[in-house]
């Protein structure tokens, strides 16, 4: 925390001042976790920088630059960009879903020059931005008004529908969780929340019946009884548990994991990379990594709490929760606590879109931190 006087903080800061204000402790932790990721990618490649570690390092460095760049941009600029970003994301998302359906199935990517981009990743950030902006303009009473609520739910629901159509169940869950969390944090009345929870209880079986793809249903069923398909879909869960469990208290040592190196693990460099870490570093290492994540999240919560604007608070908390949901879903999935859905472990799993969206998110979070003293009127910007 800075000791600078309030007055100074309210003035427009120079870029150098802003860089000084960046929470470098948190950035350091993020870098440490990313380095663990590089080490794991090196490990699952059998002790090689190629094909994954080097690429990932380059991406992280680019992501790092993005983080710093985003953090110094005034939070009000982000406020004003929130709806356009949301709109662009939605258009890309719908475009890719339609193109995918025209094409050959699960198409989640659009190509922008050398970069493959997943609009669903973009949408996670855009939604938090847009919702934070929308809710920023609403008092507690406003939010619980049906018209406003319906608008907010539409903002959440429309991208969720298109993401689930991709189909990408994991990201859909995160979008819904992010959206619901923001509504809750903004002060949605319990009179809405409790019936909504009841509705979800009804909706789940309905979704099972009509929304989920067969392979998604199979994943769930297999999760409930992995032995039913021990060599098929159950294989992943079984082998992931073996990998984690066989790490024991202190693990098999760096590069010593056999499960991933001998290809018993599926997607060892992406969604299941945590299992390799748990195998090589054991309980001690895994808990330490969880603590690292928890501390980063703690920073995020603290940033949210210290922001003066509701936009900043909601944005920071939404981004933190987004990060948390990533970890929660991925870890629960590889540990066999929930069915397998395709969600990477942030900062550790190999993947460009996820890396950039996570680093962009941290950049926004940092921007909230840097501009935590900035007051934004409820009706600023004049849009809605």
């Amino acid at each position, binding site marked *: 925390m800075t000791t600078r006087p309030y007055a100074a903080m309210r003035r427009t800061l120079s870029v150098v001042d802003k860089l000084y204000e960046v929470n470098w402790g948190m950035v350091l932790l993020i870098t440490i976790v990313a380095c663990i990721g590089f080490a794991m990618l090196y490990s699952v490649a059998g002790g090689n920088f190629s094909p994954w570690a080097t690429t990932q390092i380059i991406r992280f460095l680019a992501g790092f630059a993005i983080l710093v760049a985003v953090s110094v941009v005034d939070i009000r600029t982000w406020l004003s960009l929130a709806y356009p970003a949301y709109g662009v994301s939605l258009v890309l998302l719908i475009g890719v879903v339609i193109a995918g359906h025209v094409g050959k199935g699960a198409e989640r990517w659009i190509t922008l020059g050398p970069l493959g981009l997943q609009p669903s990743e973009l949408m996670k950030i855009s939604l938090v931005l847009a919702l934070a902006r929308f809710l920023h303009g609403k008092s507690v009473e406003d939010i619980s008004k049906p018209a406003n609520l319906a608008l907010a739910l539409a903002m959440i629901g429309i991208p969720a529908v298109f993401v689930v159509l991709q189909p990408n169940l994991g990201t859909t869950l995160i979008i819904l969780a992010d959206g619901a969390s923001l509504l809750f944090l903004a002060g949605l009345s319990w009179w809405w929340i409790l019936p909504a929870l009841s509705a979800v209880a009804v909706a789940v079986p309905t979704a099972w019946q009509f929304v989920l793809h067969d392979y998604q249903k199979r994943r769930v069923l297999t999760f409930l009884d992995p032995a039913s398909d021990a060599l098929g879909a159950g294989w992943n869960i079984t082998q992931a548990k*073996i990998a984690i469990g066989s790490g*024991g208290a202190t693990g098999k040592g760096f590069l010593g994991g056999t499960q991933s190196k001998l*290809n018993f693990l599926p997607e060892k460099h992406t969604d299941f990379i945590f299992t390799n870490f748990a195998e090589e570093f054991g309980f001690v290492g895994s808990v330490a990594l*969880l603590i690292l994540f*928890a501390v980063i999240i703690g920073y995020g919560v603290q940033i949210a709490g210290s922001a003066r604007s509701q936009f900043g608070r909601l944005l920071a*908390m939404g981004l933190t929760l987004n990060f948390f949901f990533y970890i929660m879903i991925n870890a629960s999935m590889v540990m066999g606590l929930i069915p397998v859905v395709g969600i990477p472990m942030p900062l550790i799993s190999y993947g460009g879109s996820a890396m950039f969206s996570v680093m962009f998110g941290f950049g926004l979070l940092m921007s909230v931190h840097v501009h935590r003293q900035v007051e934004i009127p409820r009706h600023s910007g004049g849009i809605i």
Partner: protein
Amino acid sequence: MPLFDRKDKSRYASFTRRSLGMSAGMAAVFAVLGGRLYQLQIRNGNQYMTEAEENRVNQRLLAPPRGRVLDRFGVELANNRRNYRVLLVSEQATEGVEAALDTIGKVIELTDAQKKRVLHDIQMNKKFVPVPVAENLTWEEFARINMHLPYLAGVQPDVGQTRDYPFGVELSPVLGYVASVSPDDKKDADDPLLSLPGFRIGKRGIEKAFDSEVRGTAGASRVEVNAYGRVIRELSRDPGVPGQDIWLTIDKELQTFTAQRMGAESAACVVLDCQTGDVLALASTPGYDPNLFNVGITPDQWKGLITDDHKPLVNKALSGAYPPGSTFKPAMALAAVQNGLKDLHVNCTGAVTLGNHQFHCWKRGGHGGVDLKRGIAQSCDVFFYEVARRLGIDKMEAAARAMGMGATSGIEIPGENSGFIPSAAWKEARFGIPWQMGETLNTGIGQGYVLATPLQLATLAARIASGRAVVPRIAHTVGTIAQPRPLADPLPFTDEAFAAIRDGMNAVCNEGGTASRWRIAEPGMEMAGKTGTAQVRVITKQERSTGVLNDTALPWKMRDHGLFIAFAPVAAPRYALACIVEHGALGHPQVQIAHDVLLFAQKRNPLGMRTAYPTNAALATPPVPLGGHG
């Protein structure tokens, strides 16, 4: 507009409350994740470690080299040679098993029968078990497979071992053969080798009798495999224990000579060492090539073997039971001398009458005055009717059993027939009819109920020659353990009795007896013997009246069996022999064979003593087995 209105303050408070609540929720989730890690890694860590190890490490069985079978001079009768083969792992055949077989079929020749067998084997085994597709490939074929390997998913070239019988058919009655493990074989056995695809076990003969000794103990290679079963590296290797060698008493040269001498006859011939009971030759013709079974006999070949009326699959030497006919007479003569009938004198008129039944001599006109020696030499039936009448069935049975008949000898080759010696008590129990004197007379000339195997008849000859209760045996040394054979006990007959019987048998061959046309002329190598004819069917009175007076007029299947027992040299017997030629009574081919075999044996090894069995010191370092694994 104030920056912080009342509403802002309230929503700030609400946000703080709720975000703290959510933080608590997140903390709880982290606690759950930590708890789950504890459960997986600490509580169940050992179990998962074992599972990971099981994942990683694959035990591959190594078939040990099968022990060799050697003759008494160390000639390899059964050994192993390299078997270039192709295995298929159905799990890894990504295009499917049938497609894989088609692709293999383009590289090497595969018959439809082979493909069918592979599909069947794959169904019977677990998906990751390699199943043999083709064995005993030529080097060129094997090289072609290796060259095309990149396009053959799931195909594993492999160098195994296969049993080889360098002398094929000649030794089939002794060695038997090896073949695939049947479900029955696995029933009560827990040897993991039995589940190894392509593993062969002994099915007959010495291969079966000593299967556990020659099989050895499975070795194992612990290999690290990846999830696709591909071997990454070998972690450790236990070569297993090679099978033990079996040294037989057989003299391969004598065996070969005997078998070749028997030629195409449906016949059996056994040569024993009179003193030790060592089986020097045990031939049964026609035989089969044991190598056929080893590489997988085709249905046509199998059909040919089982439909052949000369029954090549039957080991006639010890599984065939025949009425011994006159070859039984020396045993009766022994009992006669032992029971004070040494000076029995009978006048043979060609037949004797018992009640209202005529018992004929083979010589229709009769032999006239016959004593013991002449009775044996001329094989006078009337003389032995009188012997039988005087002895009674009980003494005859005792004498026959003392000579090794009516019971299995315990020779180490499975499938031995016990033959049969009747008794009054047996008949009562079996048919509820008292024993008749006529049956006694019939038994006296080796007819009626009496049955003997060629091995038993050879034992009879050996016991007459040595005067001792020699027991045939064929395995001399198993692995490093020589099987000592103490001198057999004397038989319960006087030396005088033996001398008289040998004298009679000498007369058979050397003093104008029934086999004198084929006497061994070489001085000091003379044989003594006894001819015999076993009636396959009785020529009816009606046939006699229509002119079917002897065998020549009958089809082969109905002709009498020709038998002969002998020992040599007469002066100091070493070799005993029994030979039977089925439906071959005419022309006495069995006597000709005996003549040639005994002469060959004596010329080759005059005293019958020479062997090359390993000393115990030599056995301490067993011969180096072939490398490779199966």
